[in-house]
């Protein structure tokens, strides 16, 4: 048979087959493709979470001995642990302030770039670069900036003739938390900015154009048109930012270790200390803190999404 004959027979045979639907895979194929990811997820996420819940109700003794203590860990935590409450208070302040500043600061920067401010391409790179840096680098850089003797912060104050305001920024309970907060915001502003910038560029040009035709001023356009249309983005960033801040650890650990006098102690740093620095192998108590905090975060996320969700669908 000639080659052209073979090709035409092959084409006829294939055209007679039913259409293959890539979405309709057999159970075997599904298992093969999903199993590796599910196993990893189960091993490194589900099991540790379940184990933490289990530990929270037990005292973990050496060599695998566990003793059921019921709500004992939670009672001790809530009724007799003053450092825990200090950590909760610090984390709450940090989370609320940093979330608001991060999200709305990011929005302002994005608006600045969206309005094509001078040097916008350069500013975009400069503002986004800290996002790419690790917490360790950011922490070390800011510890240097805040150093009393050779830090940039005091040098600038001195240069401005404000020497009276020079101080040990990370060394005093009244300034330590806000100083860490500034470093944190510096790192994350750029992330929010880039997300907002993408959302701004996706806004329908007709709506913005119509507002301009109606002689709408820039503030009115921002308040009545842009922000309502960015609502979904704002809510998402608020929730994401909130979760991240409630679990803040790295930056605080590097910059202050929770001091001075527990003024920057957060729930996460306290969990770490209780687990690894308190001369004990009992992971029950730190697990109780982690579980309680997990439930609190979950509850707040539910409340936030309920309060901030879009009730009326925008049409444009």
């Amino acid at each position, binding site marked *: 048979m000639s080659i052209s004959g073979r090709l035409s027979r092959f084409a006829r045979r294939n055209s007679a087959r039913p259409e293959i639907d890539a979405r309709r895979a057999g159970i075997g194929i599904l298992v093969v493709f999903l199993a590796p990811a599910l196993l990893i997820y189960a091993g490194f996420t589900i099991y540790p979470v379940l184990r933490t819940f289990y530990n929270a109700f037990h005292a973990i003794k*050496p060599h695998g001995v566990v003793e059921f203590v019921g709500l004992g860990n939670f009672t001790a935590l809530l009724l007799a642990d003053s450092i825990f409450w200090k950590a909760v208070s610090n984390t709450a302040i940090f989370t609320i302030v940093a979330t608001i500043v991060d999200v709305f600061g990011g929005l302002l920067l994005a608006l600045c770039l969206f309005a094509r401010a001078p040097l916008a391409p350069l500013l975009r790179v400069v503002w986004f670069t800290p996002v790419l840096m690790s917490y360790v680098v950011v922490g070390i850089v800011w510890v240097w900036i805040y150093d*009393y003797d050779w830090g940039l912060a005091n040098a600038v104050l001195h240069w401005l003739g404000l020497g009276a305001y020079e101080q040990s920024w990370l*060394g005093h309970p009244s300034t330590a938390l806000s100083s860490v907060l500034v470093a944190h915001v510096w790192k994350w502003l750029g992330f929010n900015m880039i997300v907002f910038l993408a959302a701004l560029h996706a806004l329908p040009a007709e709506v913005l154009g119509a507002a301009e035709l109606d002689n709408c001023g820039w503030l009115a356009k921002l308040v009545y048109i842009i922000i309502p249309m960015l609502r979904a983005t704002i809510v998402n960033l608020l929730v994401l930012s909130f979760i991240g801040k409630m679990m803040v650890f790295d930056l605080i650990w590097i910059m202050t270790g929770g001091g*001075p006098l527990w003024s920057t102690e957060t729930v996460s740093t306290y969990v770490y200390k209780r687990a690894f620095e308190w001369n004990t192998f009992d992971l029950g108590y730190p697990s109780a803190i982690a579980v309680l905090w997990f439930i609190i975060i979950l509850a707040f996320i539910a409340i936030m999404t309920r309060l901030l969700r879009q009730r009326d669908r925008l049409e444009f």
Partner: protein
Amino acid sequence: MHACFAMRSVAAVGLVTAAILGGVATKASAQNVTLEVWSHEADEPAKVAFRELAAKNLEKSRPGAKVKITWYEKNPLFAALKTALPAGKGPDVFYLEPDQVEYITASYVIPLDDLVNWNNIEPWARKVWTHNGKTYGIPQEAYTNELYYDKDALKKLGIALPANGQLTQAQFLEVAKKARAAGMTPISQGVGDRPYPGAYISGEALLRKLGPDDYQKLFTGKLSFADPRVVEVLKWVKELVDAGAYPKNFMTLKLGESHYYFYSKPGAVTLPMGSWYTGRAFVPEDKGGQPEKFPLGIMQYPAMDGGACNQCKTSAIGASFVINAASKQKELAAAFLNAMSTPEMGKMWIETVYLQTGIKADVKNFSGPHAAYFTELMDRQKGVTYFIGSPRDMVTGECKDTFAQVLNSAFPGGLLTVDQAVQMMNKSCYKG
């Protein structure tokens, strides 16, 4: 028949080969063993060289044995151990310090009494690791708390040190005031990355004022921090703090930076530090070490008015090694501990690390570029009564955390009054 013969031949060859390979494998598994060691102090070349040499010596004496040392920083090492040991894993041998008694109470380390050659270890150092009649660690590094000073700076202030090298508490306060007036930092110290250096001055003062017994009671919860003698000491420390004794960046200055602050920039009159100061100072200047001609001196911590033991001094054990209870090669692990603890290795430790050791070493004459330093260090040990153990060895849990936050950091950092410090320490530590 031929086929049958061929099959039998193949089977025979197979069996013989399997037997040979099996034999080789058995022999190999008996001899080729790897001893896992986890150690801190990766950033101290002399200590790294010391332990690597001990590993090589063991490998030479035990063909087939290999020692694999993994180097850690302190905090990651203990975080790794606290997860590995409860899972029945971890290295055969690991670095530990005497204040970490939880490893002993949890039985994650084994008694070494019958495994190690204790003839090579100083009895006083062994005692530090003895709990309920059993010894759990090989005390490698020993140190004393010293008060280093810049001889030229002290001369500039017009202060002469008495022959015994010990100023009174009033004289030391005078040094601080004079130094500040002259634009010098009296005491280089920082608590940016350690939970103890800020308490050197108050700790040594309390030891001298209270004497060893009451000092121990204070840090084991049997004596109140409101005791008038303790309050008196804290008031003196507060006077030092108010006189500007510590650097302005005390709260964030790191341990290594405080060394550099003392001998290079900007310079300070004194540096309270464990005698392991040398580990960072005696490296080349371009690697952050002390300048070659730096006029380093050692004075005794000040004598306290009415002190119960002004000749007292803290001596403690630092770097030590223990054997994991889950190790399958305990005998080889003990051989490694012995390899690190011979008199020759003890001599090498002193001559290269420039630091005391718990290993018995017969070193009467010191040689090398820092011989004068070591001679002065030994002179400062004459007539001294040692208190073995630092406050951190005695406190645990919440008290340990409060010690780090209060006596180490906030109090010398000028953030607390004496009353506040007493109240906070008592709340967490005093069990009376």
